[in-house]
């Protein structure tokens, strides 16, 4: 009987340990990154703050050995988002749920679409879903998984939110 109770305790502990660890990871990694004076932001708000450079971003030009300041590599410097105006002199595409997730030809390649994984790969390596390398003006970002997921959630929010 005692042994059975122990087993149940162990099983319960095991059942909770995974989600608890994930929650701690999110709270521990994302929380401190995005907690402002008004408390923690939700994931989409975190993505928006990263997009606008209100939260620190690590990134550099592919040929460089040093990171550049957040203010000069924030996504909003080049990419308009859904509902926003155009950006003078920018050739970078507008980013929203439709433009990212619809099947479309990008950089002259065959039709492709982004998902969360391929979006993160592009941000980190410059390689798009068709394995075409992005232009060098776009920095390569050193993003954590929660940061990447937050950016993705922010950009596709209008479609799936």
């Amino acid at each position, binding site marked *: 009987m005692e042994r059975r109770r122990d087993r149940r305790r162990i099983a319960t502990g095991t059942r909770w340990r995974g989600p608890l660890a994930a929650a701690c990871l999110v709270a521990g990694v994302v929380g401190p990154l995005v907690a402002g004076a008004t408390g923690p932001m939700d994931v989409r708000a975190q993505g928006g703050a990263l997009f606008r450079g209100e939260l620190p971003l690590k990134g550099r*030009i592919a*040929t460089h050995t*040093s990171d550049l300041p957040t203010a000069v590599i924030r996504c909003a410097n*080049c990419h308009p988002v859904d509902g926003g105006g155009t*950006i003078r002199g920018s050739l970078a595409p507008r980013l929203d749920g439709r433009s990212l997730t619809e099947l479309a030809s990008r950089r002259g390649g065959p039709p492709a679409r982004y998902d969360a994984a391929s979006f993160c790969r592009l941000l980190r390596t410059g390689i798009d879903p068709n394995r075409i390398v992005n232009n060098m*003006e776009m920095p390569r970002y050193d993003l954590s998984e929660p940061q990447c997921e937050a950016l993705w959630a922010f950009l596709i929010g209008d479609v799936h939110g």
Partner: protein
Amino acid sequence: MCTVDRSAPPRVDHDGDNLLSRRRFLRTGAVAAAASAAVGLLAPRTGSAAPPVRVNDHGGPVYPRIEVPNLAMGCSDETSTGLQELLRGHVTAVQLVWVGCSTTCPIQGAIFEMTQQLLGARVGSDIRLLSISINPLEDSVADLHSWLARFHAGAGWLAARPAVEDLDVLQSAFGNTRDPLTSHSTQVQIVDRTARLVWRTNELPSPESIADVLLAAAGPR
């Protein structure tokens, strides 16, 4: 700030200077000559005018060295001078930007800021950095000044703008083959003490690579 500092000792530039050995220069020259010939053959000809020869538009040594056009420049300190006068006496890294640009220009500014940090006291003594606006219609003297302040420019980093009518000449001299009013190269142009273009970097070069080329072109202190 555009006032030319003549305290730097004059130097004589030789073809076999520190930037490239004589042998490399000759080898590069042969390649450049072949490339020039290819450009000449491929370029469309209009009338009897020979097409302009471009060398190393994609980065690398410029041989023979090209004299920078002596365009009138307005500077961030409200003085005016010729571009050659602005460049003579120092080895200079030149970038093309416009102050209202939010895309590549801030990255270019940050790259020059990091280059300035790497070079320390050499910037302002025998080496200079120069940001030239390609949008003189919008970039005022105050804007040039704010550009420099934004990236913590020291005394050896200048900003200037050409006259609108000289834009295409300026852009052509510095490797832009597209519309001079809406686009610009993000390469850095290295100009020697005699106002001749000696090197073009790749697009958005690293601060370390700019510093290395500037130091090689300037020689030891």
